[in-house]
């Protein structure tokens, strides 16, 4: 129809001048992606505060921006912008300044390769992704682990005992859980015969959460750890080490670090949905056929986010040595078992 003609002309132009097409897609995509994930993360923060309040029998934000507190994050951002920008004496200045920036860069890198849903035009799903790489699953995995560097930079450069402890714990936690996560991704890729996230979604006639239940559980736990959510938030445990690696950060620098955590949460949930819960697959909804994959996609992401927030409000946190215990002694062997399972099942059934 109308849309298919647009797609045809654009594809024709793309075939003619591939380089300019890639550049255009890159620039426009970067702008849109930044807007989307930032606004998405704002929505995630709002959801967290409201839902956590619901669990604890209290209101969340309910004054700023109507009764639902929609503009609360805006008010917080204004407050953070107006704070004094102080760098502690004895801190390693370049490292200190660059840590939040590297965290933001990480999230942008990850967001570049993740498809944010699809549009169903004429029965074919067109994924919304900026860089449709062939190895995007692996690339996303690797880019997420750059966050470790950012955490360590923040903690180490602050010239503060608490930050250092937080940084150590952060590294221990993240490294211990990158490996099982990576192995689970490989297991999924085995069954899907591809590392491209779009193709993984398209090959999920049966969701991989049911085909590889062990992998699903391990990946979820590893994701919760990687994001630094309770019960795994030792690197920012409030009571023991005050604020962990973000102790010496104030004002908008801290706001940036805090916000990156929520953007990561959003991206991590999307990754979980894409790999294990069937992405945007789902039956077409009658009236809005074009948007029906988006609806399914957003619903699933919402369920995963609610699950993450729910877990945060209900559990106590582990001790750091128990976390690393769990990671190296239990998760890694189990993920290898899962890999073997995926190889067998993949071999015989697909």
């Amino acid at each position: 129809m109308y849309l298919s003609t647009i797609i045809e002309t654009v594809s024709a132009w793309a075939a003619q001048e591939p380089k300019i097409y890639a550049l255009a897609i890159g620039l426009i995509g970067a702008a849109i992606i930044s807007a989307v994930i930032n606004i998405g993360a704002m929505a995630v923060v709002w959801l967290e505060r409201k839902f956590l309040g619901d669990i604890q029998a209290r209101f969340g934000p309910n004054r700023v921006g109507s009764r639902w507190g929609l503009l609360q994050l805006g008010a917080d951002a204004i407050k953070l912008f107006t704070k004094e920008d102080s760098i502690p004496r004895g801190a390693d200045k370049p490292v200190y300044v660059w840590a939040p920036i590297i965290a933001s860069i990480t999230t942008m890198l990850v967001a570049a390769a993740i498809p944010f849903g699809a549009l169903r035009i004429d029965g074919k799903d067109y994924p919304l992704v900026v860089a449709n790489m062939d190895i995007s699953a692996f690339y996303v995995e690797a880019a997420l682990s750059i966050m470790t560097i950012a955490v360590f930079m923040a903690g180490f450069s602050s010239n503060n005992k608490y930050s250092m402890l937080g940084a150590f714990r952060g590294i221990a936690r993240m490294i211990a859980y990158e490996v099982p996560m990576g192995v689970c991704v490989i297991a999924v890729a085995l069954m899907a015969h591809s590392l491209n996230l779009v193709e993984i979604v398209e090959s999920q006639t049966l969701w991989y959460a049911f085909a590889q239940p062990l992998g699903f559980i391990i990946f979820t736990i590893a994701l919760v750890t990687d994001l630094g959510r309770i019960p795994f938030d030792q690197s920012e445990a409030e009571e023991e080490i005050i604020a962990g690696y973000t102790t010496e950060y104030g004002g908008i620098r801290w706001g940036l670090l805090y916000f990156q955590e929520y953007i990561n949460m959003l991206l991590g949930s999307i990754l979980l949905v894409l790999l294990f819960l069937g992405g945007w697959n789902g039956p077409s909804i009658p009236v809005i056929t074009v948007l029906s994959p988006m609806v399914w996609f957003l619903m699933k992401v919402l369920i995963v986010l609610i699950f993450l927030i729910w877990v945060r409000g209900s559990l106590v946190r582990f001790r750091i040595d128990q976390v690393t215990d769990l990671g190296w002694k239990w998760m890694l062997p189990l993920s290898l078992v899962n890999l073997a399972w995926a190889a067998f099942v993949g071999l015989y059934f697909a």
Partner: protein
Amino acid sequence: MSAIQSAFPGAVLESRVESDRRLWITVDPKRLVEITQFLRDKKDFDHYSGAAGVDRINENLFEVVEILTSHGAHQVVVLMKVKVPRDKPSVRSLTGLYWNANWYEREIWEMFGINFEGHPELYPLLLPDELVGYWPWRKDFKGYPDTTTGERAIEQVGPDGYTEFKIMPHTELIKAGVLPERPKYPTFREREEAEIKSDSEMIMHMGPQHAIVPGPFLLDLLIEGERVKKAFLDVGYIHKGIEKIMENRTYLQGIVYTDRMCYLASITNNEAYCGAVERLLGITPPERAQYIRVILAELSRIQSHLLGTGEFLTLLGAATYSPFQYMIIDREDIVYLMESITGARITHTFVRFGGVRNDLPDGFADKARPILKRMRERTEEYMDLLHSDPIYTRRMRGIGVLSPGDARRLGVSGPPLRASDTPYDMRREDPILVYPDLDFKVVTRKAGDAEARVEVRLEEILESIHIIEQCLDQIPDGPIQEKLPKKIKPEPGEAYYRVEDPRGEMGIYVVSDGSEKPYRVKVRGPVYAYMQALPPLLEGAYVADVVAIAGSMDACTSEVDR
């Protein structure tokens, strides 16, 4: 029983048997250690409860009163007095026999100037380093000098009615050496630094302002990686000098100050003080008043345990851990009940000499029973929840274990002691009011770790609910206050009264000299013993466990520092 106590080496100067539970003796200072050893080994007095210093300026003497009790072998309390001359006061220290005599003697030293020979570390506890040497609790203490100019500051009423501190020009006095000479000892920092032995160790401060919420105390940990090698504790950041203030207020006005010593459990503090003064006056409150006091004391215990356990859970899992919020919501009901009786939510000032301030409101029993029933269900839910949560048990099981022998030696009391398999509860050891008529059991656990302590507290809530229900059934009608003269002037004498605070054994020792203001009030708080016992407990734990251990002891720093 007490007659048998008197039959030991004849160094007893005077003695007085007050009842079958109290024995007051005055001993010769030279034979103090012998006699204490005899009491400890032969007569089972294995709990050193506290020590008080009294300044008898009229007789030119200092008195040190040591309080010894026993952990369940018998119920006698021995108060042993030693009198030393005022010019050169010096007493043998009892730290060789009892480990927890340490802090009590340090406090007496820094407040009165009595030297304790043989004490391993006679450093100031409550006072900062600059103020040691002025011996503030002596009766002839005139005020601290201004430490920059060296002149003394005196309180004066200014023109707008507010008191101010004016510095009087007494520099000549200072220069002439009238101020006592200050002893030399290493400061806190120097003592800490002396313990660092290698490069990989560092001192981490969970300093005065920290998130182990209940009040400011300085906790420095010498850590290597994530393990604690040694812990240093310093208190005194919230020292208000309540004991000295109470010497300048009449007995009735003093009740207000006992409230604020531990504001979470203020009824039991009130009760201890009023009970001591009632002993001096020789009166007992009428029965209805006794029942009301017991009801309030148990309500206070419930809300204190709820808050203590809830706060502790936030330390494990951040304020987002939901059962903490639910406990606070439940606590609101209990505090509302207390407010409907007394009129205030935390500092009640409700117990008076010879009774209570006002009666229960109408329909109190009907309002209270459904709330108590719901409280019982919720507490059982919490116990179930905490018991079956594997992350919680992994954090708490086997952490901060206090073996029974250790617990007795360290001098703790209250839920931590009962979690180490020692049924020591003041409501059974030293029954006051109507507790003998009530049926409840003393809750103990065998494990002695942090989980056991929290479980003991939660189960005590259930026992308290049971007690309150019995009281509501049994309460008689009648007057709520004895008739007392307008001015309360007890006979010269002394009394020691013990109650079961939610945190342990609390005792108040009142000395009166016949005037309308007490001569000396000494408060023996339970949390003092916990704080003392904390550094040995923390050795070898992880940093994350420090929070679990310190939190499970449920400290209330305001009581330590008074």
